């Protein structure tokens, strides 16, 4: 079997699971409104109302603007974090003295939730784009750095021996053994980092922004537009889903040898 046919059962299952969720939502929102009247219906809009909020926001152009604002921040921050995390992770993983210097610092900073630094970031970098990008970079850096470092450090020593007995120099070893062996870990780190970027951008946009999906939700809160709040959350979910599908496809392509093991 090839292509979409192979994924069909999985796709059908996913659609079924989403349908059940929507059905449940529909039941609670309409049921509450017309029959059991447990709580004020304004607190839980129906799926149709949320969709309508999305359409309205799209017509006014706000939705596109906010999606684009959040995405461009995420991509910039994530790109910076990737470069810094992979580069430093490789450097620290290959050079012992640097590891002794850097690792305690990272281990001390890492347990602090990045959100704790958000007010500081706003103080340092202002309420413009820079503070959000810096914040995402900071948050996404840690998973990328630590997984890259682990990947580089724990290359199978037997592969190092095999390559050295085939005549590999230090440079050959790095390029042809250490890097490819660490690639799965690096890609995992990038995926975690991307997830975290999305996670923190919304919080950053709650605090100080005049655009973005976090702003959209927070703005809706100010005016008590519950369907718009839920719409913002749904859009984030949908974007996250598609980005993850894309990253998994990329991973499958880069790590073909690993996929073939599972098959």
């Amino acid at each position: 079997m090839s292509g979409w046919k192979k994924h069909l059962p999985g796709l059908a299952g996913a659609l079924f699971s989403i349908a059940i969720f929507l059905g449940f939502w529909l039941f609670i929102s309409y049921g509450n409104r017309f029959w059991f009247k447990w709580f004020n219906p304004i607190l839980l809009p129906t799926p149709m109302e949320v969709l309508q909020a999305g359409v309205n926001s799209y017509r006014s152009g706000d939705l596109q603007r906010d999606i684009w604002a959040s995405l461009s921040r995420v991509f910039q921050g994530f790109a910076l974090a990737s470069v810094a995390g992979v580069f430093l992770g490789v450097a620290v993983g290959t050079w012992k003295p640097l590891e002794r210097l850097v690792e305690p610092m990272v281990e001390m900073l890492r347990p602090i939730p990045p959100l704790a630094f958000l007010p500081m970031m706003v103080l340092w970098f202002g309420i413009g784009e820079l503070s959000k990008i810096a914040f995402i970079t900071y948050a996404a850096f840690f998973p990328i750095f630590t997984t890259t470092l682990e990947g580089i450090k724990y290359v199978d020593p037997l592969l190092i021996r095999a390559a050295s007995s085939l005549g590999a120099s230090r440079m050959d070893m790095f390029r042809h053994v250490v890097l490819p062996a660490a690639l799965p870990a690096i890609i995992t780190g990038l995926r975690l980092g991307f997830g975290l970027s999305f996670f923190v951008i919304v919080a950053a946009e709650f605090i100080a922004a005049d655009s973005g999906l976090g702003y959209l939700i927070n703005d809706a809160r100010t005016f008590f537009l519950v369907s718009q709040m839920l719409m913002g959350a749904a859009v984030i979910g949908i974007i996250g889903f598609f980005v993850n599908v894309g990253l998994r496809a990329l991973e499958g392509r880069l790590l073909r040898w690993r996929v073939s093991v599972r098959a």
Partner: protein
Amino acid sequence: MDIATSLDAAPDLAMRPTKISIRGVGKVFGDNVALEKVDLDLPENSFTCLLGPSGCGKSTLLNMIAGFLKPSSGQILVDGKEVTAPGADRGVVFQEYALFPWRTALDNVCFGPMLKGKSKSEQRAIAMKHLATVGLAGHEQKYPGNLSGGMKQRVAIARALANDPSVLLMDEPFGALDAQTREVLQEEMLRIWEQDRKTVVFVTHSISEAIFLADRIVVMGTRPGCVKEVVDPQLSHPRERTDADFIALERHLKHLVRAEVQKLGVH
């Protein structure tokens, strides 16, 4: 003892120049003496088996010839030059195959030629040839994850041969394989060795494997690891496991090895 003397020192083996010279080599790990004062000369193009129970230091000795470990005392010379580091002149085949999982069978075999700076087409030609030698033509594009244990070890042997080393070091290469695959690979190993004469050092704890393959068997003892006896079987190839000479030598070696196992206090 009578068997050993009758098989001692094959004349043609003694006349060949020395390829690997092990002089007073000892190895200590912390307080643990792994190997004590080993002196051995291995002739060019010989097939030597290091035979002994686990803990006799046979793999340690092999790793020192490969250059992965440094002797604590004494020195190892290959072609008269002291071994200080691993090198392309000494190919190694590991029990756990040690293939690069992200490279196809073909690209694994290309690794040595690639490091030597050969062109892509040359690498490919060399690799195809050696994969064919080990009977893997048609499996070039498979990843190690899709190969059986026996096939992986064939790729590993091809990878070592493609580098054209003068010494081939094999560390219990068939130890993880089932009995049938193991015997097939032993036969193929002899065929390859006869085609492409290299100096082979082969670590094993299987007595019959050693007798089947080697023209020199170094029986090693334990506590501390040392050379107990060197036997040069003069049986003609192909060797039959059911021949009287084969069985007699097997009995003799079993006796020697068992004494060493008993010294360890485990059975």
